């Protein structure tokens, strides 16, 4: 929780009105982004993303499982978020439950696409090994290590980086068993298949303070928000998910304007993230 005096609140709001925020940024400017890949050796893919003082670790684990009866031609993806007490003492014990659940739901909505699979970040049919029998289950976990606002955007960015770092082992299926038997699978530990992460969207949260909206709000600025809209946008400028936070109602025209601003900002953020991913991968390869 942020405790601010009246003067400080006034200073933050005034700065946003004049397009010069307390840390010197403009309204639509992100904090410094730093990206590191391969931070958890046991996982199939992992990443650490820092956005200002917000720090996220994301990991992707792949396990062989059975596809659901309703979708025999699709794999499964689940997303969980946990907030560590190292970020804020109030996250200790069950204190982070509500926030974690809210973040998980928002990420699932933004990354998993519609029921038919339109707009999904990961093509679920690419996770199938033997139709109706064996598929990959992806477990995506996000851990909030340090929290200074804009958790959702940072989590989505960390997941995008972790997915681009992910290698799924190549699986050889022996095709001799009868169709109703369990197929024998041989998981290779040398050959890995890379993910196509070009369709993974980024999430841009626009926080409305007074009459203006800002991107990448820190926790002090978030405490002054009236409402926030998180928009997930992919490389083609299609909107893949949207969530509204904060109590105040919004005029429809404001929401449409926020969507178009988010769309504009997202393309810059995607290219920034792409170049950071390439740099991080080059660095990891050197080590």
């Amino acid at each position, binding site marked *: 929780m942020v405790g601010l005096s009246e003067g400080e609140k006034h200073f933050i709001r005034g700065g946003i009105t004049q397009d010069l925020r307390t840390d010197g940024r403009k309204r639509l400017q992100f904090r410094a982004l730093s990206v590191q890949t391969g931070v958890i050796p046991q996982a199939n893919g992992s990443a650490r993303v820092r956005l200002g003082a917000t720090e996220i670790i994301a990991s992707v684990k792949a396990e062989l499982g059975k596809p659901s009866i309703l979708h025999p031609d699709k794999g499964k993806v689940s997303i969980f978020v946990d907030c560590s007490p190292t970020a804020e003492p109030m996250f200790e014990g069950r204190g982070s439950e509500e926030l974690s659940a809210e973040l998980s739901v928002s990420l699932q909505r933004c990354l998993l696409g519609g029921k038919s699979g339109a707009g999904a970040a990961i093509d679920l049919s690419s996770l199938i090994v033997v139709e109706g029998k064996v598929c990959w289950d992806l477990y995506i976990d996000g851990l909030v290590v340090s929290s200074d606002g804009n958790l959702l955007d940072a989590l989505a960015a960390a997941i995008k980086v972790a997915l681009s770092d992910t290698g799924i082992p190549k699986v050889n299926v022996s095709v001799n068993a009868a169709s109703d038997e369990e197929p024998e699978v041989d998981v290779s530990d040398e050959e890995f298949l890379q993910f196509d992460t070009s369709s993974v969207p980024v999430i841009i949260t626009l926080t409305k303070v007074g009459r203006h909206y800002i991107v990448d709000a820190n926790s002090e600025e978030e405490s002054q928000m009236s409402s926030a809209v998180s928009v997930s946008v992919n490389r083609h400028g299609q909107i893949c998910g949207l969530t509204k936070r904060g109590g105040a109602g919004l*005029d429809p025209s404001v929401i*449409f304007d926020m969507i178009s601003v988010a769309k504009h900002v997202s393309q810059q953020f995607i290219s920034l993230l792409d170049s950071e991913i390439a740099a991080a991968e080059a660095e990891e390869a050197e080590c």
Partner: protein
Amino acid sequence: MSALAGTGTYSPAAAAGGKRRERKEELRRHLVEDADWPRADGRSFHDCRPAFMQTGPTTAASGSAYAEFGKTKVIVSVFGPRESKKAMMYSDVGADNKEYSSMLHKAFEGAVMLHTFPKTTVDVFALVLESGGSDLPIIISCASLALADAGIMMYDLVTSVSVSCFGKNIIIDPTSDEEAWQDGSLVVAFMPARKEITQLTLNGEWSDGRITNAVELCMDACSKLGDIMRDRLKDTATLTSE
């Protein structure tokens, strides 16, 4: 009378699942390709199901409402305001569904005049008797009627409508069959008199032009639903005064 009882079998045909799948895929194909195909229940794309709403089904609560939209049947009861035990402002516990509870909370956060009952809590309990699609928007609309029935001060009634997207088509108030095959969905919670959106969620893949269309469609339907709800409240008020 039941001489033939022994000969009947009760196991479903092996292909039943496959046929059901085929039928659904056909339904989906129609919805994606055709301009305005009558839907399984005879509606056209921009027709909502007939709405039946009533206040006061449960007597113990301070306010309650029942809503029936096609097959979806919901009861919401409101208790309170009562003294807050914990330092929470407003709580609602949905039947085992945390996601819906938090969405319901968010839809009302901006509509209930919280400052009119400081240090007290209002409990909203929603029970889905039958789930036939568009459950969350119906819960939201029904909860707002129940809150009004309980005399909780609100800036405006909150009404909610969802749309499903199939290819290039948008269909309003989807049933659960349609929801199972949708490409994307959008839920709007709206205050008709103030013309403010209190909650908006979306998934699937949308272009921003289509979002504008869908939101405007939802807002229009929300305003009309708001009129129906206002009439229900007026009916109740005249009945009690007589």
